[in-house]
């Protein structure tokens, strides 16, 4: 029997080691949506990992080629499903760019207000989920309550809480309801209160800060090379926001700041989103003041807008207009366009190719969080297993947008 305390650097006694393969599978409570991360762990440290997406791939881009241009709206809704209005507005703007039409001012303000509300709902979900995964359940419930209030506004306006399909080429599906402005002001005030409370609760908490600070760091060069945009890029210190850099709708006429991080860790990403909610509230307040209470919401173009139902049922012209737009689809002129807006996660781009008919030839949705998830490998490699949860949470990967 060999004594065990002989020096163990002789190779015969060395135990064979191999890294442990851990499968953080697609069905996992901390995987936002369905993502599979196959990790090679050495102890707690992740040596290598392979991020596998595609579990929520529904073939949207293929499905869009089978219907008409207006039938794409339900599909884009279900991309970033926590801020669907931003997707709707983005696609409607892309089609309008191709047609060369501009919606009336009242519609532009309306779109901005609904879009910023959707952005707030997105950030509430992301930050709330992050906090919950670290064990802070209370802020999560507060933020979800805030999100519920936003969804109530959406339900009042559009009829659906989440996937409204409210945008239309040339306007919106319906004008704002009568109590819209008061409702929004009340809700925004409440949500700002929630944001303040959450800050007070979390930012003094040692554990929360330790788990997020200097965790999941990525350099600005890496982020730019990876094509990151949105809050994740701004947390690295790059102040790129599509609303400021290339203003669309009326973003050029309202005052708001773009929060930018400095250390580019998970904490910065959390704080950038929290601060952005305050800026969204500012935009909403200014838009509410500037939005007219009366006036058309849709552009007056019979090629794209459906006529009112009394005309459809009673006049032949209304019937024909309705028929052409619904059965053949509104026709975008042949060509291609790339149109981009600031979605919840960054630059949401639409590359549309039209062959002149009512059926799209190609609808490419440029998903901001696809590239952010591509960077997940770089973010978590070298970190500990437990850091995966907050880092991944801070990236806000929405399965619907990543996989389409």
């Amino acid at each position: 029997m060999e004594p065990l305390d002989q020096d163990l650097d002789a190779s015969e006694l060395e135990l064979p080691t191999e890294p442990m393969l851990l499968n953080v599978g697609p069905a996992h409570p901390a995987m936002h949506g369905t993502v599979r991360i196959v990790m090679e762990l050495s102890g707690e440290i992740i040596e290598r990992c392979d991020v596998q997406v595609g579990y929520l791939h529904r073939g949207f881009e293929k499905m869009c080629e089978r219907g008409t241009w207006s039938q794409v709206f339900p599909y884009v809704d279900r991309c970033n499903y926590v801020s669907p209005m931003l997707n709707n507005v983005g696609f409607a703007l892309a089609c309008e760019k191709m047609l060369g039409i501009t919606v009336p001012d009242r519609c532009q303000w309306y779109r901005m207000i609904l879009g910023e509300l959707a952005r707030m709902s997105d950030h509430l979900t992301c930050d709330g989920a992050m906090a919950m995964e670290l064990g802070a359940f209370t802020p999560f419930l507060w933020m979800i309550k805030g999100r519920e209030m936003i969804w109530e506004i959406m339900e009042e306006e559009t009829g659906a809480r989440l996937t409204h399909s409210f945008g239309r080429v040339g306007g919106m599906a319906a004008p704002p309801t009568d109590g819209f402005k008061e409702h929004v002001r009340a809700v925004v005030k409440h949500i700002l209160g929630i944001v303040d409370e959450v800050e007070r609760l979390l930012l003094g908490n040692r554990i929360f800060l330790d788990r997020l600070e200097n965790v999941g760091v990525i350099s600005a060069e890496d982020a730019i090379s990876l094509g990151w945009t949105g809050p994740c890029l701004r947390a690295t210190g790059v102040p790129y926001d599509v609303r400021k850099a290339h203003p669309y709708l009326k973003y050029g006429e309202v005052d708001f700041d773009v929060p930018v991080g400095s250390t580019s860790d998970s904490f910065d990403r959390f704080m950038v989103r929290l601060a952005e909610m305050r800026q969204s509230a500012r935009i909403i307040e200014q838009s509410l003041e500037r939005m007219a209470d009366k006036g058309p919401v849709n552009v007056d173009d019979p090629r794209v807008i459906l006529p009112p139902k009394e005309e459809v049922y009673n006049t032949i012209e209304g019937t024909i207009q309705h028929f052409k737009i619904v059965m053949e689809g509104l026709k975008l002129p042949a060509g291609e366009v790339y149109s981009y807006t600031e979605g919840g996660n960054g630059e949401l781009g639409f590359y549309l190719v039209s062959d002149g008919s009512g059926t799209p030839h190609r609808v490419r949705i440029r998903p901001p969080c696809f590239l952010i998830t591509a960077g997940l490998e770089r973010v978590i490699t070298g970190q500990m297993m437990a850091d995966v949860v907050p880092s991944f949470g801070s990236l806000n990967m929405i399965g619907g947008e990543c996989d389409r």
Partner: protein
Amino acid sequence: MSKALIELVKKNFPDAVLESHSQLGDDTVVLAPGRWKEVCRFLKDNQQSDMSMLTDLTGVDYPDRDPRFEVVAHLYSLSRGHRLRVKARVGDREGETVEIDTLTELWASANWMERECFDMLGVKFLGHPDLRRILTYPEFEGHPLRKDYPAEKIQPLVQYRDEPNIDKVAPFGVDEGMSFGRQTHKVGIYTDADGDGGARRKIISPADN
């Protein structure tokens, strides 16, 4: 917007630019596929263009054209705020030999986007470090975004049960599932009529009596 970028590319690579246009304000150049990486590298490194970001890389299938596919990349400069769309036409009518150089050395975002383009359209990116499917599962056959791939086609990994009236069959077969909670039969008795110790449990239905 301004055509300065198009002029820049044309001046430095006059024989690589096959077409260009500025439809709807989007500057576009169509490149010869062999010069793809070279021109993109120039656009990234050159001070005037300074394309720091590859925001989008995708493909489009034009089944009536030859070359059939178009690889489309959108480049963006964070410092200058200008954009350029670069395209290259590859592939023959049957969809074979659809190849183009990879851009992963220039921008890391090309990695996953080229994987998606390969998955959806079958475009092979030469020199890609890890060209495998990303949105579909590895056993998937075909390239779904191609126009000749039927949209109704399904390729389930686990074959559906061969049940003629599958809509009418409960999620479990008559002798699967737990006995409690199933209110389908008035008399929920399990009998050992076959004498095999309940190996195949038989539920008596009122109609059997």
